[in-house]
């Protein structure tokens, strides 16, 4: 499934992701990591720790609606994989991000921005394995 190269939208969206990350650090002093935020929602320390995370999640989920109000269209979600793949992939992602203490937002954006050696190593690692996985699925097994 082809997708259109969108350098400006992607850059703009990325910049907003960055703005959100900076604002979270400025206001609450925390890393904008989806994995960590989710983990804290599932295993909260206390109400105060749970409530800000729930508010962030509520805001995140409001994003697509906000975009559709501004642009007239819901953001595209094109799923080129089967339901079993979504389930298997999702389960594996859950295991990986919990063991690895983060994902693309925590390690990829915030960790790299802090020049964290752990995050840089994590990002290089998952970029490699994602690339290999896609290659194997699309060009070795598939196609």
């Amino acid at each position, binding site marked *: *499934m082809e*997708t259109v*190269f969108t*350098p400006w*939208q*992607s850059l*703009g*969206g*990325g910049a*907003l*992701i*960055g*703005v*959100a*990350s*900076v604002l979270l650090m*400025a*206001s*609450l*002093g925390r*890393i904008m990591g*989806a*994995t960590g935020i989710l983990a804290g929602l599932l295993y909260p320390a206390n109400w105060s720790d749970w409530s800000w995370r729930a*508010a*962030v*999640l509520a*805001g*995140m989920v409001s*994003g*697509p609606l*906000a975009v559709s109000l501004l642009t007239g269209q819901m953001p595209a*979600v*094109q*799923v*080129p*994989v089967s339901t079993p793949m979504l*389930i298997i992939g*999702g*389960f*594996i*992602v*859950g*295991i*990986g*991000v*919990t*063991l*690895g203490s983060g994902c*693309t937002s925590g390690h990829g954006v915030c960790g790299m921005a*802090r020049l*964290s050696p752990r995050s840089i*190593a*994590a*990002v290089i*690692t998952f970029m490699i*394995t*994602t690339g290999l996985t896609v*290659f194997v699925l*699309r*060009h070795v097994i598939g196609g």
Partner: protein
Amino acid sequence: MRLIASYIIGLIFGIGISISGMANPAKVLNFFDVAGTWDPSLIFVMGGAVVVTFIGYRLVLKRPTPVLEAKFQLPTRRDLDLPLIGGAAVFGIGWGIAGFCPGGALPALGTGRSEVFVFVAALLAGIFAVNVFRRLQAQRSATA
């Protein structure tokens, strides 16, 4: 105040994710399909996000404290270990299979698409699985 700020921050993140294409598995997977239907857009997402955050963090972290909390909660570890690298490797495999990552999928729930809910349910199951495993391991060492 914390909750209003948190909601707005989540909203900005969610809008950014939606505009950038990170909520679109086809676009994400195509970034990694260098040998096939390559779409380099993801570089621009990461690039834009990291540059803005790098500059912003340098400014913000000069302050003694955050605005709404008593102190900054920054990770302090700098060592690499097996859970980090192994976990990252495994995350990549899952991301390459499904095309969604947590940061992309959570905002995508707002589109109402069933595929996102399926992914997130499985994501939660994976998170729970590791936590249950860790708890059992801890019990085993405690009684050993």
